[in-house]
């Protein structure tokens, strides 16, 4: 604009690494049973690695049957002698304490979560860890108000809860499980995922710091075998699982015929539906966060983009341009948007499913990005020309891979969105309120985000229809999973 145009200056962001020094990593970790860290009975262990570098972070004890027995027994004792007898307002104060310590140690937790899981520090710092503290704070407030939860005047806890959580949001999923369970008066035995046990063990230390009575929270680390032993243990009254639909099915079979209560949060293949009157720039942000948040390791990810055909070209141009600004790399760099894939196994699965996209004739596009040489990485990817007949439109990829489909009418959008065995979440982008509500009415999904995506709050119930599971976590509804109705109005 000036008479002599001045050439532009490129702003190359220098590395901005978050220091690891705040984390005190021990070479090996035991199980957390009855308020203390103990070795596994048979001395077996496994390694947990940093998926961004393949560096071994620590050796972690693998709990066997005897360890699970001990943990369940400790939880039962704590339930009978201490926790179920404690007045609600005292339980509340323990949970408030935990919420506060989580906030006080938030940076340490965020760094450890990013190290063990591979997610960007920007997300663990700004999303996961703040939500974790909020979750405990919110449910702390329910502990002394259970008679107002709509489950009768004197609802009762269930007893011992067996909880198995996934690797995609290790600490957040722990909070979704433990906070409502403890608020309702249950005690828990929780198994974190095999590849991401470390923040759960740091949480155990936080329980000690809060003087939580021994046995109220027990953490048993291990893989599938440990999980099976835990959920099938005759001494548990309640099973809560977040993970794959296949494992969820097995668990549902295993509790059949018992008195165990069960909640399942499983897979998804959410449709993110974009109408031609959407707020386009914000919709593009929603598409990006819908699929690339947490590398797409999100059960409710917006993995199917349904674009109204008359704005398809414009939307794709904007989406691709936006994707070129995504920064892929070191999860501990404060400017990283997309981190590492959590494990080699998961990387192989993403790679294999994406190949079927190529093989079945969909068109692949990724922005140019240099992936690190060690560790597990997958470039943000979109497939266009996808139809409901493609495997990548049906199967959960659980990675940074978006399948783009088109539609012509609202009816067609609904039909395509619902054409899946899953039913966890959906997104609708339109500036027209009545259309939002009509779409929300017709979408068979437990969470419908309108003009936003991937929003979570402890006050808001979350969970799926159909093969995405049953039961809800969050809000007043999240208490029902851990209480039996009792008293008047029950």
């Amino acid at each position, binding site marked *: 604009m000036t008479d002599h145009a001045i050439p532009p*200056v490129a702003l190359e962001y220098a590395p901005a690494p978050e220091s690891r020094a705040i984390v005190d990593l021990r070479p090996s970790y035991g199980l957390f049973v009855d308020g203390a860290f103990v070795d596994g009975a048979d001395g077996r262990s496994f390694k947990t690695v940093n998926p961004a570098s393949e560096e071994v972070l620590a050796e972690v004890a693998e709990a066997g049957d005897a360890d699970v027995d001990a943990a369940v027994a400790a939880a039962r004792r704590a339930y009978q002698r201490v926790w179920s007898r404690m007045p609600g307002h005292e339980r509340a104060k323990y949970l408030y304490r935990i919420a506060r310590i989580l906030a006080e140690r938030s940076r340490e937790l965020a760094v450890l979560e990013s190290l063990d899981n591979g997610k960007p520090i920007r997300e663990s710092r700004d999303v996961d860890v703040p939500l974790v503290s909020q979750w405990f704070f919110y449910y702390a407030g329910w502990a002394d108000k259970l008679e107002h939860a709509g489950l009768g005047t004197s609802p009762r806890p269930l007893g011992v809860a067996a909880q198995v959580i996934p690797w995609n949001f290790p600490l957040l999923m722990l909070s979704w499980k433990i906070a409502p369970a403890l608020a309702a008066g249950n005690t828990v035995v929780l198994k974190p995922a095999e590849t991401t046990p470390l923040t759960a063990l740091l949480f155990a230390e936080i329980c000690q710091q809060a003087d939580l009575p021994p046995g109220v929270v027990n953490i048993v680390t291990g893989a599938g075998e440990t999980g099976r032993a835990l959920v099938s243990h005759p001494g548990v009254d309640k099973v809560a699982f977040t993970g794959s639909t296949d494992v969820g099915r097995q668990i549902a079979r295993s509790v059949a015929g018992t008195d165990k209560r069960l909640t399942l949060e499983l897979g998804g293949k959410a449709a993110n539906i974009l109408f031609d009157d959407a707020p386009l720039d914000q919709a593009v942000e929603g598409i990006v966060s819908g699929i690339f948040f947490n590398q797409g390791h999100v059960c409710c990810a917006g993995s199917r983009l349904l674009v109204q055909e008359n704005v398809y070209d414009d939307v794709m141009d904007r989406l691709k341009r936006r994707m070129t600004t995504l920064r892929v790399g070191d999860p501990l760099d404060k400017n990283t948007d997309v981190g590492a894939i959590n494990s080699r196994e998961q990387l192989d699965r993403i790679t294999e499913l994406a190949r079927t996209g190529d093989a079945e004739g969909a068109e692949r596009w990724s922005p140019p990005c240099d992936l690190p040489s060690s560790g597990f990485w997958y470039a943000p990817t979109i497939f266009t020309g996808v139809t409901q007949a493609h495997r990548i439109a049906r199967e959960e990829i659980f990675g940074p891979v978006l399948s783009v489909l088109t539609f012509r009418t609202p009816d067609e959008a609904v039909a395509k969105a619902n054409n899946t065995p899953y039913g966890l979440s959906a997104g609708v982008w339109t500036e027209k309120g009545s259309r939002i509500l009509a779409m929300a009415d017709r979408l068979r999904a437990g969470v419908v985000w309108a003009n936003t995506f991937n929003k979570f709050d402890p006050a808001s119930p979350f969970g799926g229809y159909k093969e995405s599971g049953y039961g809800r976590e969050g809000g007043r509804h999240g208490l029902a999973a851990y209480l039996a109705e009792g008293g008047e109005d029950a």
Partner: protein
Amino acid sequence: MTTTSEPAASDVAPLLTDLPGVDAVGLEARAAALATRSIKKEAKATAIDLAISMVDLTTLEGADTPGKVRSLAAKALRPDPSDPTCPQVAAVCVYPDLVATAREVLGDAPIGVASVATAFPSGRAPMSVKVDDTTMAVEAGASEIDMVIDRGAFLAGDLRKVYDEIVAIRAACERPDGSRAHLKVILETGELATYDNVRRASWLAMAAGADFIKTSTGKVSPAATLPVTLLMLEAVRDYRDAFGRQIGVKPAGGIRTTKDAIKYLVTVNETAGLDWMTPTWFRFGASSLLNDLLMQRQKLTTGRYAGPDYVTID
């Protein structure tokens, strides 16, 4: 993207009607996310020098005098007298009656003289007065004119009046030799109140021939904000895609710290992109920002935090 010729006057109203809406929550969330970028070391040094080179060093007070403007212009020439490697600012920005004074001090230096015009800041004056205001500033040597749109007309729905005024002021920017002072159009986003209005006013100003769109006069709160600037950067990006002409953006008012300025540069970088990362296409309307940039620059050079006694006042 297909590039066509710019819209004719009769096409502007439908063009504005067709613009997609702005979701306020999503826009603000995106701006907040951009603000979390961590700019360190050499990137910070680059950003600080770039920001200094983009400053329109401004004084717009009823109490302005020739002495004050001479002092401001001297500061523009030598932002940091202790360091010859420090870049000069892009322009000084003054009232029309002080343009000549500023030009006198700046001489042939490659620093623009921007004059506010059109009954700044309210714009509440007859059209003839606004045109005279502009003509006098150009004759006095202004290389840039910062005009205000008629917010009253815009809010009353008289978009044609807003459009015609911009066209007329752009004509008044022409010099006898055929060259032209550049036209920055101030939207006064704080009075437009909604993001949808900001987007519409941006496109209206661009279609009417603005060389730059500018957020604020600095006399109304809120002045520049990151979400509004992000929205205007999306507008210039989309306008160039649609019609092939590049237009600049100038946030003004309320940007006081290096930290803030860097957030704006990150937003330029990741929204409009590299082509806008130059004072030719992006400016900061600011006064106290410059000294904060200089203090941060000294910190990078010496490793010690500076203080206000170590930078000069204008």
